[in-house]
C-alpha cells in the first residue's frame, strides 16, 4: 500500500487525565487531501501535531513514508501552516519563505531560485522585499503556505489555516490552495471548523467527535476535479455537506460548528 501516513491505534492522554485522542486508526494515501473536522475539543489539532511529531502519542504509532514520525521530522518531511501565519516580522517575505531552506543548508542561489518559484505559485511575485506587517492577512497566509511548500515536504499539515480570515478571502484562498495542491502534488492534512471548506477542498473528510476524541466517520468526497465556483453550486456539494453535518450531530454532544 502507498500510504504516506499510517496512524495505528493512537491515543493521547494529557496530564490531568483529559483523553484528547482514543484509538485513532487512519491511513492517508499519496496525493490525498484529507480534512479533519469536528467540534472544539475533539482532538483534531492534537492529531495533526501527533502526525507532525510535535506531540508524542501516549499509545500507538505514526508512520510517515515508512518511517517514524520523528525520523520524518528530521528528514524535513513536514510543511506546517498554522491559523496565524506565524511569519518572522524581522524577515522580508523572501527571507521568510527561505527560512526552512536555510535551516536545511541550501546554497544561496538555490534558495533564491526556489523562493522565486514559490512566490510565483502563491502569486506574491514583487513582494519579496516587503515585511510581513505590510501584507494583508490573506497575503501573510500565502507566504506561510509558500514557506511550508518551499522544501517540497512529503506532507503538508494545515491547522485551520484560513480560520482567521473573512469569508470572502477564505473562499478565494480555498480555491488558490486547491490550485497549489494540484500543481505541487503534495499530500495535505487539513484541520478545519468549516463544513463548506472541508467539502470543497477534500478528497476525504474525517469527522471526529469529542470527549474522548475519536473518528466517528470517514466520508469520501467524490466531487469532480478540478473544483471551482461551480463546485459550490453542485447539488452533490450540498448532499455531502448535509452528510458531514449529520455525522457531526451524531458524533456526540451538540457543539456543532457553523
Amino acid at each position, binding site marked *: 500500500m502507498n500510504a504516506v501516513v499510517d496512524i495505528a491505534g493512537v491515543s493521547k492522554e494529557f496530564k490531568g487525565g483529559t483523553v484528547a485522542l482514543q484509538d485513532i486508526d487512519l491511513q492517508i494515501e499519496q496525493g490525498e487531501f484529507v480534512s479533519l473536522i469536528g467540534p472544539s475539543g475533539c482532538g483534531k489539532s492534537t492529531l495533526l501535531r501527533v502526525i*507532525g511529531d510535535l506531540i508524542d502519542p501516549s499509545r500507538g504509532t505514526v508512520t510517515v513514508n515508512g518511517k517514524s514520525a520523528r525520523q520524518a*521530522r528530521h528528514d524535513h518531511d*513536514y*510543511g506546517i501552516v*498554522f491559523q496565524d501565519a*506565524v511569519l518572522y516580522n524581522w524577515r522580508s517575505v523572501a527571507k521568510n519563505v527561505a527560512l526552512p531552506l*536555510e535551516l536545511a543548508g541550501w546554497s544561496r542561489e538555490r534558495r533564491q531560485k526556489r523562493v522565486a518559484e514559490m512566490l510565483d505559485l502563491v502569486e506574491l511575485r514583487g513582494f519579496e522585499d516587503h515585511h510581513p506587517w505590510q*501584507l494583508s492577512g490573506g*497575503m501573510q497566509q500565502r507566504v506561510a503556505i509558500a514557506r511550508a511548500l518551499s522544501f517540497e515536504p512529503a506532507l503538508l*499539515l494545515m491547522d485551520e489555516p484560513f480560520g482567521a480570515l473573512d469569508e470572502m478571502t477564505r473562499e478565494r484562498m480555498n480555491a488558490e490552495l486547491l490550485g497549489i495542491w494540484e500543481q505541487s502534488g503534495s499530500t495535505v492534512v487539513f484541520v478545519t471548523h468549516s463544513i463548506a471548506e472541508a467539502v470543497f477542498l477534500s478528497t476525504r473528510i474525517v469527522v471526529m467527535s469529542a470527549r474522548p476524541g475519536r473518528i466517528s466517520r470517514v466520508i469520501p468526497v467524490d466531487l469532480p476535479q478540478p473544483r471551482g465556483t461551480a463546485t459550490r453550486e453542485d447539488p452533490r456539494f450540498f448532499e455531502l455537506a448535509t452528510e458531514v453535518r449529520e455525522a457531526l450531530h451524531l458524533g456526540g454532544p451538540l457543539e456543532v460548528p457553523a
Partner: protein
Amino acid sequence: MASVAVEGPVDRGAGVKRVGSRSMLLLVVACALWGAWEGFRWLGIHYGWTRPFTVDPTSMPHIHDMFRALFERPNADGPLLIVTLLKAAGFTAKEAALGFAMGAVGGFAIGAVLAHSRILQRGLLPYVVASQTVPILAIAPMVVIWFTNPSSTFHVTAWVAVAILASYLTFFPVAIATLRGLQAADHRAVELMRSYAAGRWTVLWKLRFPTALPYLFSALKISATASIVGAIIGESPTSIAGGLGGAILNFAQYYSFQPQNLWATNIVAAALGIAFFLAVVGAERLVVRRAPEHVG
C-alpha cells in the same frame, strides 16, 4: 495585526514634517520649563517663600546664568568652563562606555543562561535581583581594593574600576530583558522551528534572539543613562578628579559662591546621558525592523 497592504515608498515629506513638529514640541516644552523655573523663582523671592525651600539667587540661579557660566572662566587664568567640562565629560564617557559594554555583554550572558535553565533561574534570579538592592557606594570600596591594588597580579587603572562600577548598574536591566525576551517567542513559531528539526542553537539565533531584540533595546536605553550615573558616582570612591563626578564634587564645594557652575555641570552631565541614549536609539533603528505601529 496589520490588515491593510501598504504600497509604495514612505512619504519623505511627511517624515520631515514629523521631525519638524517634534522639534517644535521639544522647544515649546523647554520654554514652558524655563518659564516655570523663572516664574517660581520670581514669586519665591518676591514673597519670601521658605517652603519647600528658601528661594534666593543661590538656591535657584537664573537659567541664563547657568548657560552663561559655561562660557566664562571660573579661574581668571584658567580655561572656559565648557572646555573643562567637555574634557571631564569625555573622560566620564570613556568610563561609562566601557561600563555599558561590559554590563550589556554580562547582562546578556546572565539572561541567556537563566533563560535556558529553569533550575538556574530559580536559584540565581533572586540573587541577581538582590544585587541591585546593594548601593553602588557600598560596592565601590571593594572594587577599588580588589582591582586597583598594584600588588595584585590582575589589576586595572582607576578609570577601569569606575567602568566596573558602572557595569554593576547596567547589567541588571539587560539581564532581565534578555531573560524575558528570549522566552517571548510565540509557541507556534517554536513549533515551526521544531518541525524543521532545528536544534537549540538554531532556535536561539534564528528565532529567540531576534524576538528578544526589542526587549533588549528597551533595557539598553535604561542602561545607557544608568552607565553615566554609575560612572559619575564611581569617580568619587576611586578618587578620580578628571571626570564629571570630580567636577560635581568640586563645584558643590564652591556652591555658595558660584552656584551656576554646578548647574552648568549638571547640564553637561544630562547632555552626555542624552547622547548615550540617542546612540542606543540610533543603533536600534539600524538593527530592529518593527511594525510601523511599534515605531515610536
